């Protein structure tokens, strides 16, 4: 895999596409602009001071796609046969989702045109709404699909970035069970996951046989838990605190038979 915009000396150059065969090229890109619910409501009912926001942003996106070669240094000027910019208002997420698709019969791909259309449509939405909301945030601009050309078809894999804060179901009544003995006969350690961590892992309590630990400390327990259930690999995500027999502990804190080890997120009381 090489970067086509670099020549043999590593210098930037424009790819010569004269000898490439023409084919049908299509690309779709999307992005989002997050805004306050009030701003989204004004946008939906056409109450913003600069007028018809979506129509303006659509034209801006189409214009931008046609002028991509003026903005991105090594892009070819393309005679696009089709540019479409669409908007979806998402009240639940508090954002406008912008989608652009470009098409032509030609020798070079149109993904930069689709990405530029989305970017400029988002910027125009910002410009049209900024009088009432300066906190708007543009993000998640990416290529969704690409068809045609030598590199073949591409479809973005569904990725699920979990934005903080984590949205979960109804909370528990504020208590966790206590004092339960190990539910296995051999020497073991009782492990509890509390609060958000319990919901993130989908595990509340589990007993771990002591002989499954290579080292009899918290780090050894974590390794044994990961071997027991891959969900415990998430113990390494973000800041996770640990208490052994209800006293704050670290990776080197020793653990032994009948110990109660709790893992939990940073505290948020008061």
């Amino acid at each position, binding site marked *: 895999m090489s970067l086509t915009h670099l020549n043999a000396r590593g210098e930037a150059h424009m790819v010569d596409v004269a000898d490439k065969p023409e084919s049908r090229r299509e690309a779709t890109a999307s992005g989002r602009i997050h805004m306050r619910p009030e701003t989204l409501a004004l946008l939906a009912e056409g109450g913003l001071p600069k007028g018809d926001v979506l129509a303006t942003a659509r034209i801006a996106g189409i214009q931008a796609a046609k002028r991509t070669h003026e903005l991105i240094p090594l892009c070819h000027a393309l005679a696009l046969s089709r540019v479409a910019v669409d908007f979806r208002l998402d009240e639940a997420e508090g954002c406008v989702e912008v989608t652009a698709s470009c098409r032509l019969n030609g020798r070079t791909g149109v993904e930069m045109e689709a990405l530029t259309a989305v970017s400029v449509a988002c910027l125009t939405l910002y410009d049209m709404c900024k009088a009432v909301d300066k906190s708007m945030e543009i993000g998640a601009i990416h290529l969704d699909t690409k068809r045609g050309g030598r590199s073949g078809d591409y479809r973005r894999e569904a990725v699920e970035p979990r934005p903080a*804060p984590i949205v*979960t179901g109804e909370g528990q009544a*504020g*208590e*966790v069970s206590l004092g339960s003995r190990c539910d296995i006969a051999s020497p073991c350690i009782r492990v509890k996951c509390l609060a958000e961590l319990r919901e993130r892992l989908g595990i509340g309590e589990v007993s771990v046989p002591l002989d499954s630990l290579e080292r009899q400390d918290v780090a050894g327990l974590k390794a044994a838990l990961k071997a027991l259930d891959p969900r415990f690999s998430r113990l390494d995500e973000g800041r996770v605190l640990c208490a052994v027999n209800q006293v704050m502990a670290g990776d080197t804190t020793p653990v032994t038979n009948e110990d109660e080890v*709790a893992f939990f997120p*940073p*505290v*948020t009381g*008061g």
Partner: protein
Amino acid sequence: MIRVQQAPFDAGEEQRALLAGRTDIGAVVSFTGLVRDFNERPEVAALTLEHYPGMTEAALAEIVEEAQERWPLDGVSVIHRVGRLAPGDPIVLVVVASAHRRAAFEACDFIMDYLKTRAPFWKKEHASDGDYWVSERDSDHADARRWEP
């Protein structure tokens, strides 16, 4: 006196109980924390507080002990509620009594700063757009660090 409970509390009643029969106390400072209707998201309709029974009481006792080592205190009450609470509900109470006001003010401030960063409570907020666990705040840690040497 340290209590973790679901039931509401009456700050005035708790303060009177702390002062009952005492004439050597010159200052009492009381802090009540309330559930706000906005936090990480607008329109918080309720919150659920989870804690780690046993460790919670021990952590609060340790914080109160440390306050008593730092300031000459004549009495301390800490009450923290758990379970489901609505905006406006009292959630935490700290009452500190001392012979002089400076000790009472500072110890009350200290106890709240340490409680927020060391006691195992977790808040889950129920907002109009869903439920989520509250994240820790850097500002709370910065507040607690003020008391470090």
